[in-house]
């Protein structure tokens, strides 16, 4: 129930946020809009526990239970949903809107009778993505939902802890995996998008774009930025705090870079296997069976040494993040390339050459962007890292944050949280650089 309600609220607020973003992109410069997009995604980049701690520091009466859960799920993801819906509207809806204006259709009627029905498969796909995301979410249901609205991941963790037997939860995890796979397969979504309009096209949507709607998309990000800034100064003034030690900074950088690199490799591999729509649908249907299960499964693989554990950790984090990222970005771009690939296949060239000269150049910047997102999310992970890295003595900043919380020291945990931007910036520089030089390589090919 919490997943359904969270999904519904996220979609409604996301649609509102998208209209706000349309207004913002029609009246701001590209660089400003990129910063605003970052603000939309900010709540996704912070570990959920800190989102709650920072929020409760500013708002004395936060909701909890079912409504708290729905609120926080939507609060964290509304920016992401807004950005996705904004992109769809920009890509698809300009001609529909122009015709509607000619026909004198009101903005509300346009949204209800033209936009939503025509984008129904996109919204179905997004709904399913959100549903699975909320069903598999652990931190928010465990922290805010109380016992009643725990969710599946909480149930799996509870089983492991109460029974002390990991094997007992494997059937549940597998059942969940199969269920989401079948559900996704049954939906059979093929969000084929052939059109693309540049951001300037947002000007065309002047009448439906509303400035106040931007609050939905940007509100959570701005709120959290204020909360982080408010805490930051009090932390800087506290001489007892250590913002980072070099070893944990290095470990965070290793985890983040390896996860990004692994994501890059797996995403490249997935795009290489892009042959038939049927395959692609199964790939889209893939959802991970849970963090704890993933962690314990990976313990069984390979030797236990720092290097292997870092590799396993990066593989696990990539597999956890990639389904969502692949579904939302790379898949769409691959669909757009279908026509070009079909033309290329007429000529007697190998699939590898088609991949190397047609597919990869087109999607590589997106793969790099996805790698950055995965690497950044990996920086905040302590659930999987604690299972895989703790035994080999590797401590990341996120793991130290959790330890600080375990020893009453919340200020120290927040200080470590603010240090996460250091490896984050290194990650962005490296992978943006890779995207940049690869684009130059591609342009030199023609």
């Amino acid at each position, binding site marked *: 129930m919490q997943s359904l309600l969270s999904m519904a609220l996220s979609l409604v607020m996301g649609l509102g946020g998208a209209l706000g973003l349309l207004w913002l992109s029609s009246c701001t410069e590209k660089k400003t809009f990129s910063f605003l997009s970052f603000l939309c995604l900010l709540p996704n980049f912070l570990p959920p526990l800190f989102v709650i701690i920072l929020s409760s520091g500013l708002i004395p009466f936060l909701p909890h239970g079912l409504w708290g859960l729905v609120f926080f799920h939507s609060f964290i993801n509304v920016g992401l949903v807004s950005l996705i819906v904004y992109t769809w509207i920009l890509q698809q809806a300009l001609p529909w809107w122009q015709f509607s204006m000619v026909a004198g259709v009101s903005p509300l009627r346009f949204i209800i009778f033209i936009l939503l029905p025509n984008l129904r498969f996109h919204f179905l796909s997004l709904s399913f993505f959100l549903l699975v995301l909320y069903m598999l979410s652990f931190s928010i249901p465990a922290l805010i939902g*109380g016992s009643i609205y725990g969710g599946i991941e909480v149930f799996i963790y509870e089983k492991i802890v109460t029974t002390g037997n990991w094997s007992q939860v494997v059937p549940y995890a597998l059942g969940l995996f199969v269920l989401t796979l079948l559900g996704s397969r049954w939906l059979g979504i093929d969000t084929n998008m052939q059109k693309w309009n540049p951001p300037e096209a947002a000007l065309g949507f002047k009448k439906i774009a509303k400035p106040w709607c931007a609050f939905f998309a940007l509100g959570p990000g701005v709120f959290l930025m204020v909360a982080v800034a408010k805490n930051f100064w009090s932390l800087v003034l506290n001489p007892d705090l250590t913002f980072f030690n070099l070893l944990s900074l290095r470990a965070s950088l290793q985890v983040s870079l390896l996860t990004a690199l692994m994501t890059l490799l797996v995403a490249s591999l997935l795009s290489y296997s892009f042959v038939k729509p049927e395959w692609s649908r199964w790939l889209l249907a893939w959802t991970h069976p849970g963090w704890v299960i993933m962690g314990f499964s990976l313990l069984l693989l390979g030797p236990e040494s720092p290097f292997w554990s870092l590799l396993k950790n990066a593989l696990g984090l990539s597999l956890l993040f990639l389904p969502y990222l692949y579904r939302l970005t790379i898949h769409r771009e691959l669909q757009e390339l279908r026509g070009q690939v079909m033309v290329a296949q007429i000529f007697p060239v190998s699939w590898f050459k088609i991949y190397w000269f047609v597919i990869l150049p087109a999607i590589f910047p997106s793969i790099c962007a996805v790698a950055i997102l995965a690497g950044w999310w990996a920086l905040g992970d302590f659930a999987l890292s604690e*299972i895989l890295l703790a035994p080999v003595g590797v401590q990341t900043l996120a793991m130290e944050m959790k330890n600080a919380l375990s020893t009453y020291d919340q200020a120290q945990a927040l200080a470590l949280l603010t240090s996460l931007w250091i490896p984050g910036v290194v990650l962005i520089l490296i992978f943006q650089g890779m995207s940049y030089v690869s684009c130059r390589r591609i342009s*030199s090919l023609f």
Partner: protein
Amino acid sequence: MHTRPFLYYLSALLITLFLLFVPELFWQDTDSDDDQTLRIMSYSSFLQEEGAGPELSQLFYEQTGIRIKWINAGNAGLLIERLKFKRDSDRPDLIMGFDQFSILEARKSFKFLELRDLNRKLQNPHLPSGSKQSDFLAYDWGPMTFIYRNNEVVAPIQLDDLLKEDYESRLILPDPRMSSPGLQFLLWVIGVKGEDAGFDFLKKLQPSIRVMPPSWSSSYSLFKSTPGTMVFSYLTSPYYHKLEENSEAYKAAAFNDPLPVQVEYAAIPQFCGRCDQAMSFMNFLITPGAQKILMNKNYMYPVALLPEMEKDFPWPEKNSYLDPIETLRLINKKKELINRWKTVFY
């Protein structure tokens, strides 16, 4: 023409990654073949720089010349599962971090060496009865109660007070399914009120509960950031704020009802490779030096008597704790109680 920068970039990236991973690539487990190094497994926060682990190993080395290799098990709740995954050659000689609940699970999966003689050495009148086990050694302990901030709430003095409107949406309780302190609260209610009346009480308590986070640490973090709340934690928690933050604002509620007690245990598994060294460490754990480290780092009461502790870390004024036999009976029914708890809260 532009292919060259791309290759340069890739080479630079690979070299950077190689340099970043040099220590891991050439890592060798030098301790594994050393017969003298004692291998001890414990949870993350115990082993971190600010935790008790590093200071204990330093003092132990100074006193005995035996080095310790700590094995980090991550989360304390997954200690036993982690042990099952260990290969024979990697298994620890000693494990620290069990509590009353996990020792029952541990006994089902592994056998442990007898520690009766050591337990006989614990002659602390403050130590709650029933804390001593034949095969586990208690090394610190703490009664549990509600912690609040001065002037934010009126301190409750009995469990029934928590049902009052004054406490509506104020209680932060760790989830008993996933957290040991959460389970302590459940046992406390049932221990004081009896099983049926206890669950009736929990039903009535629902409006007072704000959140039930999955761990003690997340409960305490939410308590610290949410004014006007109370958290179920250790009676010794205010000592942290007093000693580290110089704050007297945090108080422990003094209940008339007998309090539950959380005890931390260490044990030597029968598969230990360096059993003599492990036994030396067990003896060391209850010495005043080690006990002082545990008290100052874990903010828990020591199991040994430390005369100098009276000033900053006074013993609890009241020695009324849950009946250990009744507690043990309830711990044995843990699964059944949690299932019943679910029927109240689902």
